[in-house]
Protein backbone atom coordinates (compact mmCIF):
# COMPACT_ATOMS: atom_id res chain seq x y z
CA UNK A 1 0.00 0.00 0.00
CA UNK A 2 1.68 3.18 -1.11
CA UNK A 3 1.56 6.57 0.55
CA UNK A 4 -0.81 8.13 -1.96
CA UNK A 5 -3.35 5.40 -1.36
CA UNK A 6 -3.06 5.91 2.40
CA UNK A 7 -3.76 9.62 1.97
CA UNK A 8 -6.73 8.85 -0.24
CA UNK A 9 -8.14 6.48 2.33
CA UNK A 10 -7.73 8.94 5.19
CA UNK A 11 -9.31 11.76 3.20
CA UNK A 12 -12.20 9.49 2.26
CA UNK A 13 -12.73 8.62 5.91
CA UNK A 14 -12.49 12.30 6.86
CA UNK A 15 -15.16 13.32 4.36
CA UNK A 16 -17.41 10.44 5.41
CA UNK A 17 -16.99 11.30 9.09
CA UNK A 18 -17.85 14.95 8.44
CA UNK A 19 -20.95 14.10 6.45
CA UNK A 20 -21.95 11.49 9.02
CA UNK A 21 -21.63 14.06 11.81
CA UNK A 22 -23.91 16.43 9.91
CA UNK A 23 -26.41 13.69 9.13
CA UNK A 24 -26.52 12.41 12.71
CA UNK A 25 -27.28 15.91 13.97
CA UNK A 26 -29.75 16.73 11.20
CA UNK A 27 -31.64 13.46 11.01
CA UNK A 28 -31.20 11.66 14.33
CA UNK A 29 -30.87 14.33 16.97
CA UNK A 30 -33.08 17.06 15.58
CA UNK A 31 -36.85 16.88 15.40
CA UNK A 32 -36.61 15.91 11.75
CA UNK A 33 -39.64 13.83 10.90
CA UNK A 34 -40.99 13.88 14.42
CA UNK A 35 -42.71 17.22 13.78
CA UNK A 36 -45.02 15.28 11.48
CA UNK A 37 -45.79 12.41 13.75
CA UNK A 38 -47.44 9.44 12.19
CA UNK A 39 -50.88 9.99 13.57
CA UNK A 40 -54.39 11.11 12.96
CA UNK A 41 -55.68 14.64 12.63
CA UNK A 42 -58.20 16.24 14.92
CA UNK A 43 -59.42 19.84 14.80
CA UNK A 44 -60.77 22.09 17.49
CA UNK A 45 -62.06 25.65 17.37
CA UNK A 46 -61.10 28.11 20.05
CA UNK A 47 -62.31 31.67 20.67
CA UNK A 48 -58.76 32.66 21.49
CA UNK A 49 -55.61 30.60 21.16
CA UNK A 50 -53.43 33.04 23.09
CA UNK A 51 -49.78 32.16 22.57
CA UNK A 52 -50.37 28.73 21.06
CA UNK A 53 -48.14 28.15 18.05
CA UNK A 54 -47.56 25.51 15.40
CA UNK A 55 -45.65 22.59 17.00
CA UNK A 56 -46.95 23.33 20.48
CA UNK A 57 -47.48 20.04 22.28
CA UNK A 58 -50.83 18.32 22.69
CA UNK A 59 -50.95 16.64 26.07
CA UNK A 60 -53.02 14.03 27.80
CA UNK A 61 -52.66 13.84 31.57
CA UNK A 62 -49.52 15.94 31.22
CA UNK A 63 -47.81 13.66 28.71
CA UNK A 64 -47.19 14.79 25.13
CA UNK A 65 -49.29 12.75 22.72
CA UNK A 66 -49.19 14.99 19.65
CA UNK A 67 -48.41 18.36 18.10
CA UNK A 68 -50.29 21.36 16.79
CA UNK A 69 -50.02 21.18 13.02
CA UNK A 70 -51.64 24.42 11.92
CA UNK A 71 -53.70 27.30 13.26
CA UNK A 72 -56.07 29.15 10.96
CA UNK A 73 -59.06 31.44 11.22
CA UNK A 74 -62.30 29.66 10.47
CA UNK A 75 -64.02 31.95 7.98
CA UNK A 76 -67.61 31.64 9.26
CA UNK A 77 -67.26 31.55 13.01
CA UNK A 78 -64.21 33.85 13.28
CA UNK A 79 -62.73 31.34 15.66
CA UNK A 80 -59.22 29.95 15.47
CA UNK A 81 -59.24 26.46 14.02
CA UNK A 82 -56.39 24.42 15.47
CA UNK A 83 -55.42 21.26 13.62
CA UNK A 84 -53.56 18.74 15.76
CA UNK A 85 -51.80 15.53 14.88
CA UNK A 86 -52.12 12.90 17.60
CA UNK A 87 -50.00 9.79 17.76
CA UNK A 88 -51.76 6.66 16.44
CA UNK A 89 -50.94 4.97 19.70
CA UNK A 90 -53.65 7.04 21.40
CA UNK A 91 -56.54 6.24 19.08
CA UNK A 92 -59.09 5.58 21.78
CA UNK A 93 -59.83 9.15 22.92
CA UNK A 94 -63.61 9.52 23.45
CA UNK A 95 -65.50 11.79 21.00
CA UNK A 96 -66.72 14.03 23.80
CA UNK A 97 -63.23 14.87 25.00
CA UNK A 98 -62.53 18.40 26.06
CA UNK A 99 -59.70 20.56 24.66
CA UNK A 100 -58.21 23.29 26.87
CA UNK A 101 -55.37 25.66 26.24
CA UNK A 102 -53.11 25.80 29.27
CA UNK A 103 -49.84 27.44 30.08
CA UNK A 104 -46.93 25.45 31.42
CA UNK A 105 -45.69 27.34 34.45
CA UNK A 106 -46.68 30.93 35.08
CA UNK A 107 -45.04 32.41 32.00
CA UNK A 108 -44.19 29.29 30.03
CA UNK A 109 -45.29 28.23 26.57
CA UNK A 110 -48.85 27.18 25.91
CA UNK A 111 -50.18 23.76 25.02
CA UNK A 112 -53.42 21.93 24.33
CA UNK A 113 -54.54 19.62 27.09
CA UNK A 114 -57.07 16.96 26.18
CA UNK A 115 -59.41 15.89 28.95
CA UNK A 116 -61.08 12.62 27.98
CA UNK A 117 -64.87 12.42 28.13
CA UNK A 118 -67.05 9.41 28.68
CA UNK A 119 -68.38 8.55 25.21
CA UNK A 120 -67.93 5.02 23.89
CA UNK A 121 -66.98 6.02 20.34
CA UNK A 122 -63.46 7.32 19.88
CA UNK A 123 -62.10 10.23 17.85
CA UNK A 124 -60.99 9.44 14.33
CA UNK A 125 -58.98 11.14 11.61
CA UNK A 126 -60.65 14.44 10.61
CA UNK A 127 -62.97 14.64 13.62
CA UNK A 128 -63.57 17.84 15.50
CA UNK A 129 -63.47 18.33 19.22
CA UNK A 130 -66.48 20.52 19.90
CA UNK A 131 -65.93 21.31 23.54
CA UNK A 132 -63.07 23.73 23.97
CA UNK A 133 -61.87 26.30 26.40
CA UNK A 134 -59.79 29.22 25.23
CA UNK A 135 -56.47 30.35 26.49
CA UNK A 136 -56.69 32.39 29.63
CA UNK A 137 -55.60 35.93 28.90
CA UNK A 138 -54.11 37.47 31.98
CA UNK A 139 -55.21 41.03 31.14
CA UNK A 140 -58.85 40.11 30.68
CA UNK A 141 -58.81 38.18 33.91
CA UNK A 142 -57.31 41.09 35.80
CA UNK A 143 -59.74 43.60 34.30
CA UNK A 144 -62.69 41.32 35.08
CA UNK A 145 -61.51 40.99 38.64
CA UNK A 146 -61.13 44.75 39.02
CA UNK A 147 -64.53 45.35 37.41
CA UNK A 148 -66.21 42.97 39.83
CA UNK A 149 -64.46 44.60 42.75
CA UNK A 150 -65.62 48.03 41.62
CA UNK A 151 -69.24 46.83 41.50
CA UNK A 152 -69.22 45.76 45.12
Amino acid at each position, binding site marked *: MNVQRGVELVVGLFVLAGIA*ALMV*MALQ*WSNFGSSRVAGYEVTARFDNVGGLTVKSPVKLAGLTIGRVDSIEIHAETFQAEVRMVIDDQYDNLPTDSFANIYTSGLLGSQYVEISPGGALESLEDGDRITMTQSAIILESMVSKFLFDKAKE
Partner: protein
Amino acid sequence: MNAVLNSIARLGRSVLDGAQHAGSMALFAIELAWVLIPTWSRPRDILQQVYAAGVLSLVIILVAGGFVGLVLGLQGYNILSNFNATESLGVMVALSLVRELGPVVAALLFAGRAGSAITAEIALMKTTEQLAALEMMAVDPMRRVIGPRFWGAMISVPLLAAMFSLVGIVGGYLIGVVVLGVDGSSYWGQIHEQMEAWDDVGGGAIKSLAFGAVIALISVYEGCRAEPTASGMARATTQTVVLSSLAVLGLDFVMTAFMFGA
Protein backbone atom coordinates in the same frame (compact mmCIF):
# COMPACT_ATOMS: atom_id res chain seq x y z
CA MET B 1 -2.96 73.73 10.35
CA ASN B 2 -0.62 71.63 8.34
CA ALA B 3 -0.65 68.89 10.97
CA VAL B 4 -4.44 68.67 10.76
CA LEU B 5 -4.31 68.47 6.97
CA ASN B 6 -1.66 65.78 7.18
CA SER B 7 -3.67 63.62 9.52
CA ILE B 8 -6.75 64.00 7.32
CA ALA B 9 -4.63 63.02 4.32
CA ARG B 10 -3.33 59.99 6.21
CA LEU B 11 -6.91 58.94 6.96
CA GLY B 12 -7.79 59.35 3.30
CA ARG B 13 -4.78 57.31 2.24
CA SER B 14 -5.65 54.43 4.53
CA VAL B 15 -9.24 54.41 3.22
CA LEU B 16 -7.92 54.37 -0.34
CA ASP B 17 -5.49 51.57 0.54
CA GLY B 18 -8.29 49.56 2.06
CA ALA B 19 -10.46 50.09 -0.99
CA GLN B 20 -7.63 49.07 -3.25
CA HIS B 21 -7.03 45.95 -1.17
CA ALA B 22 -10.70 45.01 -1.36
CA GLY B 23 -10.82 45.72 -5.08
CA SER B 24 -7.78 43.65 -5.92
CA MET B 25 -9.13 40.82 -3.78
CA ALA B 26 -12.39 40.96 -5.71
CA LEU B 27 -10.51 40.85 -9.02
CA PHE B 28 -8.48 37.94 -7.71
CA ALA B 29 -11.71 36.17 -6.69
CA ILE B 30 -13.10 36.55 -10.21
CA GLU B 31 -9.87 35.22 -11.69
CA LEU B 32 -9.99 32.31 -9.24
CA ALA B 33 -13.65 31.58 -10.00
CA TRP B 34 -12.70 30.87 -13.62
CA VAL B 35 -10.38 28.04 -12.64
CA LEU B 36 -12.47 26.51 -9.86
CA ILE B 37 -14.27 24.02 -12.09
CA PRO B 38 -11.24 23.15 -14.30
CA THR B 39 -9.29 22.44 -11.09
CA TRP B 40 -11.43 19.32 -10.68
CA SER B 41 -9.75 17.81 -13.74
CA ARG B 42 -6.99 16.82 -11.29
CA PRO B 43 -8.91 15.62 -8.23
CA ARG B 44 -5.72 14.16 -6.72
CA ASP B 45 -4.38 17.68 -6.13
CA ILE B 46 -7.54 18.64 -4.27
CA LEU B 47 -7.46 15.43 -2.26
CA GLN B 48 -3.92 16.16 -1.17
CA GLN B 49 -5.02 19.61 0.03
CA VAL B 50 -8.04 18.25 1.89
CA TYR B 51 -5.57 16.03 3.68
CA ALA B 52 -3.17 18.86 4.50
CA ALA B 53 -5.83 21.37 5.53
CA GLY B 54 -8.62 19.18 6.86
CA VAL B 55 -7.37 15.85 8.14
CA LEU B 56 -4.36 17.36 9.85
CA SER B 57 -6.62 19.91 11.60
CA LEU B 58 -8.80 17.17 13.02
CA VAL B 59 -6.97 16.83 16.31
CA ILE B 60 -7.16 20.50 17.28
CA ILE B 61 -10.78 20.74 16.14
CA LEU B 62 -11.94 17.65 18.03
CA VAL B 63 -10.07 18.51 21.22
CA ALA B 64 -11.30 22.11 21.13
CA GLY B 65 -14.85 20.95 20.41
CA GLY B 66 -14.76 18.59 23.35
CA PHE B 67 -13.57 21.27 25.72
CA VAL B 68 -16.06 23.86 24.47
CA GLY B 69 -18.82 21.31 25.06
CA LEU B 70 -17.56 20.58 28.56
CA VAL B 71 -17.43 24.27 29.45
CA LEU B 72 -20.88 24.93 27.97
CA GLY B 73 -22.22 22.02 30.00
CA LEU B 74 -20.75 23.35 33.23
CA GLN B 75 -21.74 26.98 32.72
CA GLY B 76 -25.16 26.09 31.38
CA TYR B 77 -25.80 23.82 34.35
CA ASN B 78 -24.91 26.59 36.79
CA ILE B 79 -27.19 29.11 35.13
CA LEU B 80 -30.07 26.77 34.41
CA SER B 81 -30.11 25.36 37.93
CA ASN B 82 -31.04 28.87 39.12
CA PHE B 83 -34.29 28.47 37.21
CA ASN B 84 -34.73 24.78 38.00
CA ALA B 85 -34.45 24.12 34.29
CA THR B 86 -31.44 21.83 34.05
CA GLU B 87 -33.41 19.48 31.77
CA SER B 88 -32.96 22.14 29.10
CA LEU B 89 -29.18 21.80 29.33
CA GLY B 90 -29.07 19.56 26.26
CA VAL B 91 -30.93 21.89 23.98
CA MET B 92 -28.95 24.88 25.23
CA VAL B 93 -25.63 23.18 24.54
CA ALA B 94 -26.77 21.74 21.22
CA LEU B 95 -28.28 24.92 19.83
CA SER B 96 -25.37 27.14 20.84
CA LEU B 97 -22.95 24.69 19.24
CA VAL B 98 -24.87 23.93 16.08
CA ARG B 99 -25.95 27.48 15.34
CA GLU B 100 -22.98 29.53 16.47
CA LEU B 101 -19.99 28.06 18.22
CA GLY B 102 -19.46 25.10 15.90
CA PRO B 103 -19.19 27.07 12.67
CA VAL B 104 -17.46 30.13 14.19
CA VAL B 105 -14.92 28.54 16.51
CA ALA B 106 -14.06 25.80 14.02
CA ALA B 107 -13.53 28.49 11.37
CA LEU B 108 -11.33 30.59 13.67
CA LEU B 109 -9.21 27.58 14.62
CA PHE B 110 -8.99 26.55 11.00
CA ALA B 111 -7.82 30.02 9.96
CA GLY B 112 -5.05 29.84 12.53
CA ARG B 113 -4.06 26.25 11.90
CA ALA B 114 -4.49 25.77 8.15
CA GLY B 115 -5.22 29.18 6.60
CA SER B 116 -1.89 30.57 7.74
CA ALA B 117 -0.13 27.45 6.46
CA ILE B 118 -1.68 27.86 3.03
CA THR B 119 -0.62 31.50 2.90
CA ALA B 120 2.92 30.69 4.02
CA GLU B 121 3.25 27.90 1.47
CA ILE B 122 2.08 30.00 -1.46
CA ALA B 123 4.11 33.00 -0.32
CA LEU B 124 7.25 30.88 -0.07
CA MET B 125 6.60 29.46 -3.54
CA LYS B 126 6.34 33.00 -4.78
CA THR B 127 9.45 34.14 -2.92
CA THR B 128 11.54 31.30 -4.32
CA GLU B 129 10.05 31.95 -7.76
CA GLN B 130 8.46 28.53 -8.04
CA LEU B 131 5.24 30.09 -9.28
CA ALA B 132 7.16 31.98 -11.98
CA ALA B 133 8.92 28.74 -12.91
CA LEU B 134 5.59 26.96 -13.31
CA GLU B 135 4.43 29.74 -15.59
CA MET B 136 7.63 29.38 -17.62
CA MET B 137 6.70 25.74 -18.16
CA ALA B 138 3.26 26.82 -19.36
CA VAL B 139 1.62 25.40 -16.23
CA ASP B 140 -1.03 27.73 -14.87
CA PRO B 141 -0.22 28.18 -11.14
CA MET B 142 -3.78 29.36 -10.58
CA ARG B 143 -5.02 25.97 -11.66
CA ARG B 144 -2.32 23.73 -10.21
CA VAL B 145 -1.37 25.50 -6.98
CA ILE B 146 -4.04 27.94 -5.93
CA GLY B 147 -7.24 26.26 -7.07
CA PRO B 148 -6.61 22.99 -5.21
CA ARG B 149 -5.70 24.85 -2.02
CA PHE B 150 -8.88 26.89 -2.24
CA TRP B 151 -10.96 23.75 -2.66
CA GLY B 152 -9.11 21.93 0.10
CA ALA B 153 -9.97 24.64 2.63
CA MET B 154 -13.47 25.16 1.31
CA ILE B 155 -14.32 21.44 1.62
CA SER B 156 -12.68 20.97 5.01
CA VAL B 157 -14.29 23.77 7.00
CA PRO B 158 -17.94 22.60 6.93
CA LEU B 159 -16.90 19.02 7.70
CA LEU B 160 -14.72 20.13 10.59
CA ALA B 161 -17.46 22.40 11.93
CA ALA B 162 -19.96 19.54 11.92
CA MET B 163 -17.56 17.29 13.81
CA PHE B 164 -16.80 20.11 16.24
CA SER B 165 -20.49 20.50 17.10
CA LEU B 166 -21.01 16.76 17.42
CA VAL B 167 -18.08 16.30 19.77
CA GLY B 168 -19.19 19.36 21.74
CA ILE B 169 -22.68 17.99 22.28
CA VAL B 170 -21.18 14.71 23.50
CA GLY B 171 -18.88 16.73 25.80
CA GLY B 172 -21.89 18.56 27.23
CA TYR B 173 -23.52 15.18 27.79
CA LEU B 174 -20.46 13.91 29.64
CA ILE B 175 -20.30 16.80 32.06
CA GLY B 176 -24.04 17.35 32.41
CA VAL B 177 -25.37 13.83 32.58
CA VAL B 178 -22.46 11.70 33.71
CA VAL B 179 -20.84 14.11 36.15
CA LEU B 180 -23.56 16.51 37.30
CA GLY B 181 -26.46 14.12 37.17
CA VAL B 182 -28.88 15.78 34.73
CA ASP B 183 -31.43 13.27 33.48
CA GLY B 184 -29.95 11.69 30.37
CA SER B 185 -33.17 11.07 28.51
CA SER B 186 -34.30 14.66 28.97
CA TYR B 187 -30.90 15.87 27.73
CA TRP B 188 -31.46 14.07 24.43
CA GLY B 189 -35.23 14.46 24.52
CA GLN B 190 -35.08 18.25 24.68
CA ILE B 191 -32.58 18.35 21.83
CA HIS B 192 -34.80 16.04 19.86
CA GLU B 193 -37.82 18.19 20.54
CA GLN B 194 -36.38 21.60 19.82
CA MET B 195 -33.54 21.33 17.32
CA GLU B 196 -34.74 21.86 13.75
CA ALA B 197 -33.06 19.89 11.00
CA TRP B 198 -33.25 22.68 8.43
CA ASP B 199 -33.19 25.87 10.43
CA ASP B 200 -30.57 24.92 12.99
CA VAL B 201 -28.37 22.17 11.58
CA GLY B 202 -28.80 23.34 7.98
CA GLY B 203 -28.32 26.98 8.94
CA GLY B 204 -25.11 26.12 10.75
CA ALA B 205 -23.88 24.15 7.74
CA ILE B 206 -24.59 27.06 5.39
CA LYS B 207 -22.71 29.39 7.72
CA SER B 208 -19.66 27.16 7.87
CA LEU B 209 -19.73 26.76 4.09
CA ALA B 210 -19.60 30.54 3.73
CA PHE B 211 -16.83 30.79 6.34
CA GLY B 212 -14.86 28.12 4.48
CA ALA B 213 -15.09 30.07 1.23
CA VAL B 214 -14.04 33.32 2.90
CA ILE B 215 -11.07 31.79 4.73
CA ALA B 216 -9.96 29.92 1.62
CA LEU B 217 -10.12 33.07 -0.51
CA ILE B 218 -8.25 35.22 2.02
CA SER B 219 -5.56 32.56 2.57
CA VAL B 220 -4.69 32.08 -1.08
CA TYR B 221 -5.02 35.77 -1.90
CA GLU B 222 -2.67 36.86 0.88
CA GLY B 223 -0.19 34.22 -0.23
CA CYS B 224 -0.26 35.44 -3.81
CA ARG B 225 0.17 39.12 -3.08
CA ALA B 226 2.80 38.66 -0.34
CA GLU B 227 5.96 40.69 -0.78
CA PRO B 228 8.62 38.19 -1.85
CA THR B 229 10.75 38.70 1.25
CA ALA B 230 11.00 37.04 4.65
CA SER B 231 9.19 39.89 6.39
CA GLY B 232 6.63 40.02 3.58
CA MET B 233 5.80 36.37 4.23
CA ALA B 234 5.47 37.01 7.94
CA ARG B 235 3.13 39.92 7.27
CA ALA B 236 1.07 37.85 4.86
CA THR B 237 0.48 35.01 7.34
CA THR B 238 -0.45 37.47 10.08
CA GLN B 239 -2.75 39.25 7.70
CA THR B 240 -4.48 35.97 6.83
CA VAL B 241 -5.27 35.15 10.43
CA VAL B 242 -6.39 38.69 11.29
CA LEU B 243 -8.48 39.22 8.17
CA SER B 244 -10.09 35.77 8.23
CA SER B 245 -10.99 36.05 11.89
CA LEU B 246 -12.57 39.46 11.41
CA ALA B 247 -14.31 38.38 8.23
CA VAL B 248 -15.72 35.26 9.90
CA LEU B 249 -17.03 37.17 12.90
CA GLY B 250 -18.47 39.99 10.80
CA LEU B 251 -20.06 37.62 8.31
CA ASP B 252 -21.42 35.58 11.19
CA PHE B 253 -23.29 38.58 12.52
CA VAL B 254 -24.77 39.38 9.12
CA MET B 255 -25.78 35.77 8.42
CA THR B 256 -27.24 35.32 11.89
CA ALA B 257 -29.27 38.50 11.47
CA PHE B 258 -30.67 37.14 8.22
CA MET B 259 -31.20 33.51 9.25
CA PHE B 260 -32.22 33.65 12.89
CA GLY B 261 -33.08 37.31 13.44
CA ALA B 262 -36.66 38.58 13.72
